[in-house]
């Protein structure tokens, strides 16, 4: 009986690794870019490592560093990070039904490892999810993320200047890669995104809000306008 269980666990681990490896590979250039950005922003290697190892959220980490550099107070950074991550709350709820087979004690770890990408993988998995599978789907990209953040920080001096400049586009490319597939078949998503871009352009050029707060206000304002328009059936 135990042997059967062990065999199944090994199978689930292998399945988890196979499906999450491409995600991990996708993280490489962004993780290196994050390591570089952190180094250029004056963070220590320990700060940079802790950011990736403890926060493990690409968009939030980049945002936090940009806000640190812009001199935004801790509270502003915290609110921005919280807002950006609220979407994962909805994702975590929707995974509930598939998690019946998952050991309760492992849920905090699986929750910690949940990202947009591992959510996509887990929610597109047809069968009920096992504990080992759920952990490895999150763990492999995590190891890539933390490992290549450190590598990015350490190779900062060795990399040619032109390549470093090119890596900076990685962040915007990541945001595009997350947004486009989800708005592709979704008219409301396109309209809401355009409203947000338009509102941010106005806020940016008005230049009355400090950097960082312009993002927070932009997100809240455009989400509210989008929400009202959707409720009214305008879009």
């Amino acid at each position, binding site marked *: 009986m135990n042997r059967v269980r062990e065999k199944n666990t090994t199978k689930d681990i292998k399945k988890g690794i196979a499906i999450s490896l491409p995600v991990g590979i*996708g993280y490489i*250039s962004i993780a290196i870019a994050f390591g570089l950005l952190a180094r250029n922003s004056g*963070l*220590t290697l320990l*700060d940079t490592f*802790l*950011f990736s190892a*403890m*926060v*493990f959220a690409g968009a*939030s980490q980049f945002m936090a560093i940009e806000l640190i550099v812009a001199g935004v107070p801790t509270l502003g950074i*915290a609110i921005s*990070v*919280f*807002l*950006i*991550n*609220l*979407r*994962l*709350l*909805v994702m975590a*709820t929707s*995974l*509930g*039904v598939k*998690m019946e087979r998952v050991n309760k004690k492992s*849920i*905090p770890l*699986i*929750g910690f490892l*949940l990202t947009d990408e591992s959510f996509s993988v887990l929610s597109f998995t047809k069968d009920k999810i096992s504990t080992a599978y759920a952990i490895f789907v999150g763990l492999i990209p995590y190891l890539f993320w933390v490992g290549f953040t450190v590598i990015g920080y350490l190779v900062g001096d060795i990399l040619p200047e*032109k*390549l470093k*400049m*090119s890596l900076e*586009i*990685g962040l*915007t*490319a*990541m*945001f*595009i*890669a*997350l*947004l486009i*597939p*989800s708005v592709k078949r979704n008219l409301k998503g396109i309209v809401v*995104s355009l*409203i*947000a871009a338009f509102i*941010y352009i106005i806020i*940016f050029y008005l230049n009355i809000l400090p950097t960082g707060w312009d993002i927070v206000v*932009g*997100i809240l304002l*455009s*989400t509210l306008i*989008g*929400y009202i328009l*959707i409720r009214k059936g305008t879009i």
Partner: protein
Amino acid sequence: MKSEYFLLIVLCAILTSCPKIITMTFLKDKKIKKEFKDFLDIIPYTSLAILITRGVLTMDKQIMVPTIISIIVCFFVSYFRESLAQTIISGVGTMYILILLLGI
């Protein structure tokens, strides 16, 4: 070596992990209020659109042309391939080639 931003990192870690862990532990299978869910559903679109717009508005003027072309390439690759890795690699690759070609 000490961490100058340790408190901020811990705060960010808590604010990132708590929504996920608490929801998974306590709200498993429970329904959250539809109005709240609708509002939260919009945030990924608005926040990503704003971050992309910000990336364009705050770009380095010296590398404006390669940046704009790379962003357009990213849009196309993401639209047709729907792949995180391919989008990022094509963006960084286009940028690198253009910087070399233009001698920036």
